[in-house]
Every structure is written in C-alpha cells, then in structure tokens.
C-alpha cells in the first residue's frame, strides 16, 4: 500500500489508543478521588498527570478541575484527550477510502461531539460518567473496525500503531509506580488504581485473587501472555503485525524491524518476575520504551519515509 496511507493508519490507531488510555485514566481518577484523603488525592493526581505528560499544563491553581481540564480539553496540551481525537480524525480523513463508513462515522461523530465541550458545563454533574461515555464510544470504534475492515496490510498498520502506543503507555505507568519517583511507598489503594488504569483489576483477581501484591501486579502487567494490556501481549502483537505488513518487501528489507521486535519479545518471553524485581525495574521499563521507539523509527525508515536510493 502507499506509504502515506500506512502512515495515516498507523497514527490514527496510535491516537485512538492514546485517547482511550487518557479517557480511562481520567475516569478512574475521578471515580476514586472521593475515597482518598486530599493529600493522597493530590499526589495521585500528580501521578496521573505525569503518566499522561500533562503536568506542565496545569495552571497555578492545582485541583481536580484544573488537572482534568488540562488532560482532557486544554488547547495547550498536545496530548489532551481532545487533541488525540482530533489527530485520529484528521488522519482518518486523509485515508477515508481505506476505512469503512461505520468506522469513519463513529470517529467523526465522537470528535464533533467533544469538540465544543467545556469541562465547566458538566463538572458539577457526573464528570466521571462523561469520560466513561467517551470510553464506550472508543470501544465501539474498535469493535466496528475489527468487524468491518479487511484484515489486510492496512489492518496490521493499525495494530502496529495501537500496540506500540499501548506498550509505551503501560511502561510509563509501571515506571511511575515501581520506580524511584514514587513518594513514600504505594499502598493498597494506589495499587488498585494502577490496576484500574490498565483495565486490569478483574483479570488480575481472576489470576491472582484479590490479594494485591506488588510483585504479582508487576508480573501480571509485564509478563502475562493473555491479558491484552500487558507488555508481553502488546509486544507479541507488535511482532505479529510486523510480519504482516509490506508483504511485497524483500526479506532483507524486513530484517531490520523484525530483528528489533524479536529481541524485545525475547526479553519479555524469557524474562522472569524474580529477576526483574531483583534487578532494576526502572531500567527494564526504560529499555522497553527505548526499544519500542527504535521499532517505530525502523518502521518509518523501512516502509514509510525511505529514501529512493535505498530501494533502487
């Protein structure tokens, strides 16, 4: 397929994943803040902002409203929920032909619905419910995409975008909770939040019972093969997507990306939680993020933005 089209599909998927992640974090945070002391809530908001790279966008007055506004609607925040939806829609519009009408209409409608919204308009009602609604719409888009788009090369660029974004987002979250930057030690409630940020609470309980243990959480979110938000799952899907894109490209050209993906996959397939906890969790996560970025760069250099000389 045309490189430009692959580029737009890849970014459309990354922006949709980013929007979903942002919407979920906001919703979970808003739902949970009633149960926290104001000090804990503040720290927790800070972490949420950090997870979503939003800390610079909070004005001097810091509170839940300001934080939510910064993360969801602030024009100055290029990673806000609205900005992510706009990015998804703009890319989708460029490749409308590749998408089904259902996918385009759902995405377009969601963006147009959110575009004029201000937080003040619904803050005194049920703000969490608003973001849950956005999440539902995003899930609809995912479902409709799965059923109405052909699972050809274009589909695998969507997969690539989604899982590279997800791997990086989850790494960042894990780093905030397991890394040195966490002030004090996280307690039960914080771990609960982490699990909910990743839609992992119920699946975790199924796997490990409701006994919340940091090590088991790390194991689940890093190594679990079956849970869709684990690093292992995302990395596996990245590898699978890479093997399906650019079917016409010669093996030699495919090698660069596939090697990087394979190496990353090995680090989670053959890693073990005990080793991880003994060693540096932060180091492991930083390395994972770095390798995802390398894969992104390699995809661009090989399939999208390659110089003509390299192929002639």
């Amino acid at each position, binding site marked *: *397929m*045309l*490189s*430009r089209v*692959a580029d737009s599909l890849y970014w459309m998927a990354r922006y949709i994943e980013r929007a979903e992640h942002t919407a979920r974090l906001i919703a979970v945070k808003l739902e949970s803040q009633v149960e926290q002391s104001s000090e804990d809530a503040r720290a927790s908001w800070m972490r949420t902002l950090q997870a979503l790279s939003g800390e610079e966008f909070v004005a001097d007055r810091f509170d839940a409203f300001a934080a939510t506004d910064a993360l969801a609607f602030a024009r100055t925040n290029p990673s806000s929920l609205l900005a992510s939806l706009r990015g998804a829609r703009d890319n989708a*519009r*460029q490749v*409308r*032909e590749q998408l089904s*009408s259902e996918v385009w209409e759902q995405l377009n409608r969601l963006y*147009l619905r959110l*575009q*004029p919204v201000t937080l003040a308009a619904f803050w005194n009602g049920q703000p969490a419910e608003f973001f849950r609604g956005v999440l539902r719409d995003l899930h609809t888009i995912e479902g409709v995409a799965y059923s109405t788009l052909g699972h050809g*090369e274009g589909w695998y660029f969507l997969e690539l975008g989604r899982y590279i974004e997800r791997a990086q987002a989850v790494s960042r979250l894990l780093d905030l909770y397991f890394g040195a930057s966490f002030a004090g030690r996280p307690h039960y409630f914080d771990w609960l939040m982490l699990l909910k940020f990743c839609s992992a609470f119920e699946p975790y309980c199924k796997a490990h019972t409701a006994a919340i243990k940091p090590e088991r959480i790390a194991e689940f979110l890093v190594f679990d093969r079956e849970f869709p938000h684990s690093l292992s799952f995302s990395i596996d899907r990245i590898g699978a997507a890479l093997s399906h*894109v*650019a*079917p*016409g*490209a*010669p093996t030699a*050209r495919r090698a660069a990306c596939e090697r990087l993906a394979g190496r990353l996959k090995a680090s989670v397939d053959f890693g073990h939680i005990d080793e991880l906890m003994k060693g540096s969790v932060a180091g492991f996560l930083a390395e994972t993020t770095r390798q995802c970025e390398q894969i992104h760069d390699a995809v661009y250099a090989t*399939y*999208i933005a*390659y110089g*003509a000389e390299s*192929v*002639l």
Partner: protein
Amino acid sequence: MQQERRSVGDLEAEGSAVLGDGPCARYRLGAAYDEMFEAGGAVRGHYAALHQRLTHLPPEELTRRQQACEQSFLHQGITFTVYSDAQATERIIPTDLLPRIVTAPEWDRIERGLTQRIAALNLFLRDVYSDGLVLKDRVLPRSMVYGSKHYLREMRGLPVPAGAYINVCGTDLVRNEKGEFVVLEDNLRVPSGVSYMLANREVVRRAFPGTFRAAGVRAIEHYPRELLATLRALAPFQDDVSIAVLTPGVFNSAYFEHAFLARQMGVELVEGRDLLVNDNVLYARTTSGLKRIDVVYRRIDDDFIDPLIFREDSTLGVPGIFNAYRAGNVVIANALGTGVADDKAVYAYVPKLIRYYLSEEPILENVETYLCREPAQLSHVLANLDTLVVKAVGESGGYGMLIGPHASEAERQAFAIKLRANPDNYIAQPTIQLSTAPTFVESGVEARHVDLRPFILNAEETRIVPGALTRVALKRGSLVVNSSQGGGSKDTWVLNQ
C-alpha cells in the same frame, strides 16, 4: 386528475400555460423549449409515462422520494466539505429526482456529433503542437493559438499515444428554442461530474423503479470500465499496465469523484507527494518499495503538475514528471496543453476545424459567437450588451461573465469598460433560452433551465457512454447551471428507442 386545457389564444396572451391541478399546476412554459411539454401543453411522447406517474403520486410521496435521494448522497459521502474552524459540514450538490429524458434518435445525432468533434480537436492539437499547418493555412489567427495562456511550448514536438491528446472530454450541450442540441463549450482539461452522472442514476432508478424499467433506459454503469479501457489503450505495448488516478487531495471539491473512479477501476489513488521521479521514470512510494506507474489519469491542472517546469509554488504536483513524460516513460491523460482547444475564442472556430481536418460538415452546431478581438464584432457586441452573454476567454465556472438581459445598466457600462480595455479576452453569444425540464422544487414540479454534459473517452477509439450529467439551474429563471453557483443535477435517461 383533471388537466385543465386553455385555448391557444389564452396561451399566447399569457405567454405561458397552466398544466393541470396535480404536481405540475405551477409549471410555466415560456419561450424556452420544454423537455416535457409541447408549446400547447401536450405531453411529449417520451415523457408520457413519467408525467402519468407524477400525476398519480401524492406530493408528500414526491417529497419523500426526493429526500431519499438526498439522504443516499449524504450517506455515500457524495459530498463536498465546507470547512470552518469548529467543524466540517458535509453538503451535497443538490440533486433532483426527476430524470431528464433524451430519445434514441436525438442521442444518436449527439453521439455522432461528439465523435466527429473530438476527432477534429485531437487533430487540431496534434497540428498546433507540431507543424501548425492550420495556422499556415490561416484557418485561425496565430495569435489566438500562441497567445493562449493554455498553449504550452513545452508540448511542441512531443508525440502522444494514438495522437489522443484529449482522453476524457466533457462537452456542454444546450437545446435552443428550436429544440436543437448545440454545443455550448468543450471541457478538455480536467472535466468533472461523471460521478454525479452515475450517482444520480443509482438514486433515481430507486425513486422511479417501474417507470425506469418500462422506459427502456440505456445503461451507463460501465463508464469506469470504459475509462479503464481507454487508459490501458494508451500504453498498448505493455501487458501489465500500472495506472493511477492523481488527485490534489482530500480538500479538493471533486475528491469524491477521484476516489470513486479509482475504486471502481481498481487502480491506485495517489497524491503528488506519493510520487517521485527517478531517472525519468515515475514511481509511487509504497510500503513494499517503489512501484512504477505507466499511465496517470491526472485531475490536477497543467499549471500545478510539475513545479520544475510550471508553477514552482505548486505542492500538488511531482517534480520531474514532465521529463518522465517527455522521455516516453509515463503517459499523462489528458495530455498537457489541451486548454488551447477549449479556449472560448478557439471554440468559435471549431466548425471550421471540423471542415478543415475532416472535410465534413459539423453534425453539431456551435452557438453563434462574436469574437470581440474583431473590431466589427466588438462594435456589434457593445451596441447589443443588453441581449448578449459576454464571457471571458480563459475563465470557467460561470465567473467573469455578463448576462446582458439580467444585468443592470450600470453593470453593463462597467463591463463595457473591461471589454474596450481588453477585447481579445472576450467573446459574446446571444442569450440562449436553455431548454427547461420538470424539476421538483418546494412548490411542486416546475420548469427549470437545464444543459447536458455527456462524457467522451478517447484513445485508440472513441467511447461514449449513453448518458450525461444534466445540470439544472435551481433558481426560477436562472440560466446559470454551475454547481459552484447554485446549480444542481439530474439523472439523464437515454432511451433504447
């Protein structure tokens, strides 16, 4: 329903006719030829079935069917987008559910006339881009050709496959007061509208299924296949011809048509930024590597297609594509430089060109045209501005023109100044009463002026699909059918008999 018939005397007194109580109650006949009604109010034979259907349908039903047509357009995305800061609104170009009907003998003459015309125009282009015999023989003034802003020196001496410069042509025909189809203008550069022709057929076939079936209407759905065959024929020595439709992109108002045709033909839709030229060969950048393109159906104007040769500020084109073209490594359809033949001044000479190249009398006549570059004709035009339509030679879309009878004296004076300042740039034609056809408007079925744009494909042979885009001026009395100025479109039924 009772049809009220008035006496001929009454009609002459009123200058119009009242045609019954049904949906056509407010239909007014005027000086123009009406497609459905004869001057006395009798329904023409080939419209009888439709008229009958209309009188039996309640007005709400007509409204419902009209809305269904519009909804279908909206859902298919046959829209142009109006972008504002807050959002993008998708609008459809208005479509009217009542088909415009053309009989078989009428169409046969049109088809023969158009085939003849495009043959002459292609020969003309080949001639002016090589030896220029037509100019040596003084058939038309040199300055008109060489001075035309669309004449491209770069095309001199460049052969094109099958001598077919014009591969896709949209010729605008109108029916004059006498009921004859005449040519209003040719569109030889980047003619558009065929997707509306096809989309209208789809919706109107569903709006009047019984009437459609019974009428025996010739099919047009194979247009994309014919277009593909035409493009393929331009690279006859290759087995696996790689074709692409080159579009300016999603923000172009005709983007829907570009994407539609690419999809229907099964070829790639590309933008300038997808393409590159290496060693004078044109390639598209794909994920699997560079893919060579042999034939480009370009929907970008000459000016913008190659920033190395033409407008250097163009971001829509492909640097070096003209050199690839010159090297014979890629075919561009339509060829560059065809604009010199659809220049409004050259238009006036087309009947002469037909006689000169084909030794035949033109089957389709031109509209009588005055060339303001000729002093005697300029005087006549200035003296009769109130009855003439004056057009700027290089413009399109209905812009830069004066419709004398509809303009105020002040507007005519202002235009006269422009005329005197640059007479070479203008031609004038008598105001033709375009024929009227039944159109469904808010108050029911009324007469509105229409034109006819068939599409002619040409490579090693001429292919004309039996149909056309009928454009309709939706405002009562308006003669301007262009969509950019409030026009709409209709399905066109060419009958088997």
